């Protein structure tokens, strides 16, 4: 077996269909020699392409509703059982905004929905890490990645409460990165990715216009999901052992660019 991730075992959250970022990461990890488990909400698995895609990479599926503590504990237990021991990496690619789905603007949030959004989109990472920590489920020098977006720093109106959720997610990455780094040298990082046209992205009003804006403000253009997958594989590998507690921008330069000729030309 060869590849960056030869012999490594990992859990991939959030494979829904071929457009899913998580699917592209899973494919890349498999190509690099990893063994995988997929996990998603049981309803999502039933009504999506998860099962068909899991077969393509020989990944068992363990259902988990991340809003339920017992499901996450069960997921970790099942992973340990399926892998026959500890695993090496995990991708957290989980998000849902109930207020966006119910068309509540940010100044009219339903707080029950808000709590659910934060729970699913951010606290779920803490729950997973806490379960892994308690069960000593991740090998030394393991790696956990969470996908985030720059809206945690800069506000895009249509991203609504998800900006808050991503800010919380990035905070959890840093805080738990400290705990897990000290205990087991496990890295925890977030990747702030360019907008990607997925089922989730399509739920953001005006997404296509924003994608175009982002592409024109990024010197390299929007980073494709396939390139993100390779970057994730590298961050799961032993080539990045001392990178932790970081929010890494994989965005074609968007986060550092104030203006480009393409953008300013629209005002001339």
């Amino acid at each position: 077996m060869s590849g960056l991730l030869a012999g490594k075992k990992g859990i991939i959250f959030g494979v829904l269909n071929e457009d899913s970022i998580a699917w592209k990461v899973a494919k890349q990890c498999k190509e690099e020699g990893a063994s995988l488990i997929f996990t998603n909400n049981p309803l999502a698995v039933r009504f999506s392409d998860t099962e068909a895609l899991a077969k393509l990479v020989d990944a068992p599926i363990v259902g988990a509703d991340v809003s339920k503590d017992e499901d996450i504990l069960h997921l970790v237990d099942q992973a340990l059982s399926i892998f026959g021991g500890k695993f090496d990496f995990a991708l957290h690619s989980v998000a849902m905004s109930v207020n966006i789905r119910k068309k509540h603007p940010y100044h009219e949030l339903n707080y029950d929905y808000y709590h659910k959004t934060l729970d699913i989109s951010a606290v779920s990472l803490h729950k997973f890490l806490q379960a892994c920590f308690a069960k000593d489920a991740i090998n030394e020098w393991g790696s956990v990645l969470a996908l985030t977006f720059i809206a945690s720093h800069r506000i895009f109106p249509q991203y609504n409460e998800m900006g808050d959720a991503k800010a919380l997610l990035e905070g959890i990455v840093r805080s738990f990165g400290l705990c897990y780094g000290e205990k087991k040298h496990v890295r925890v990082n977030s990747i702030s990715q360019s907008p990607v046209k997925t089922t989730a992205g399509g739920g953001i009003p005006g997404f296509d216009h924003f994608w175009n804006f982002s592409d024109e403000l990024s010197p390299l253009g929007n980073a494709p999901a396939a390139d993100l997958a390779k970057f994730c594989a590298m961050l799961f590998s032993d080539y990045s052992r001392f990178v932790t507690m970081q929010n890494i921008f994989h965005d074609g330069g968007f986060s550092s660019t104030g203006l480009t000729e393409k953008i300013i030309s629209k005002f001339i």
Partner: protein
Amino acid sequence: MEKKDAVKKNIPVSPGGAAKSTFKKVMVDAVKNSALVSKGNAEYDPILLKKLKSIIVKYTEHPELLEDIAGQTNENFIEKLNIDSIDFVEIIVDTEEMFSITIEDEEIKKLTNFDELYNLIQAKIKNKNPNSASKA
């Protein structure tokens, strides 16, 4: 299958195993086209109707719109209820749990309005209990 049971097992897979990437569009269209009443189905089992309403009411912020279902055929009714495709699948699963039935993915794809959902559930209940007529 109860939701909690699905967690304990490798997830139940819909029959056929075919890619369901077109399924989302079917579900969204079904939700948009669905009306909670139909002029063609004048009689509803009040118990079954009440139970279905109790399921749907959890997913809408406008429960008052469920009060007078009979006779309403407003095409925008579902949009007014603000139920999306995620709510729709939750409604399907809750329906399965409440009535201890299984709705196959192929059957879900054929649902285009509330009457069809109602009739499907009624038929499945009857098949489970052939000696009791539409007993919800």
